[in-house]
């Protein structure tokens, strides 16, 4: 995928989606990378003892998936200014997680070309389990 420029973007446009499907191994690798070893993400008995149906995907990992969605879209010359999401639904290992984003605003600020987006993760039933927003800066074909 080539560089996306501000001239390529319009409100309502959906950015390329990113599909994830976490194995329990991936959850353990991410735990090692993040330092979050909460057992509800790799110990099924522990998770069920807390009242959960089974293992769940880390909320912060879904946040990082949305970071990757944005990184993949704006690279190499774009810059992420801010992003965030809230965790409204649980996602399970070995279940598709679709990361999506739609442009909600295109504007200039401080001489930068900025794009605001709604971003979210979606479970196989179409429920938005991690809705959020993001702002990125994109280069212009006219410079800047």
């Amino acid at each position, binding site marked *: 995928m080539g560089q996306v420029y501000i001239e390529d973007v319009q409100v309502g446009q959906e950015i390329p989606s990113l599909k*994830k499907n976490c194995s329990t191994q*991936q959850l353990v*690798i*991410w*735990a*090692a*990378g*993040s*330092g*979050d*070893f*909460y*057992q509800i993400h790799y110990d099924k008995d522990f998770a069920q003892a*807390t*009242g959960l149906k089974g293992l769940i995907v*880390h*909320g*912060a*990992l879904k*946040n*990082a*998936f949305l*970071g*990757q969605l*944005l*990184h*993949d879209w704006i*690279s*190499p010359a774009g*810059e*992420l*200014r*801010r*992003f*965030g*999401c*809230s*965790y409204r639904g649980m996602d399970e290992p070995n279940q598709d997680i679709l990361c999506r984003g739609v442009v909600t605003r295109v504007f200039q600020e401080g001489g930068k070309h900025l794009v605001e987006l709604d971003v979210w993760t979606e479970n196989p039933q179409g429920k938005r389990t991690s809705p*959020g927003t993001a702002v990125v800066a994109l280069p212009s074909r006219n410079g800047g």
Partner: protein
Amino acid sequence: MADTFEITDEMRAQIGIEGAPWTYEVTTTSVRMYARGIGSDDPIHYDVEFAQSQGFRSIVAPLGYIGTPIYLPGKNDPTFGFPRREGGPRLNIPFKGLLDGGTETEYFDYICAGDVLEERSHLADLRMREAGRPMLFVTNESVYRNVSTGQVVVRQRLTSIHM
């Protein structure tokens, strides 16, 4: 599990209290591990020479990764790794259940392997919500400063749900 719960004045008085700063390290190994964890195959997170050819000082931390707090036995939480900093807010939370509530991150610069960051954190907000049982939302705000440049690189708000 507590059946009823209210945020007390004593708890609200903790809002704004900042604990002692803590050091976070960003290493090549931790950046690669985090990138593997999210399933990225972008060489900018793995290959130092490639990252430098793109103008970065080393491999770039994936978005969402802001380094690893230095771990000192007895001074960090053994499950989550976060520091139990001196002088920080003290909340006597009666709930055992814990879930992620949300993450908001504002970036002012890239984070690369080799960076050492100083993190300062304070309790930013406390909220209650009833959804069949009481749930306490605790939000902490952290500011990360690059130790070698003095520049603020990230401001982040993390919300945890206790129930």
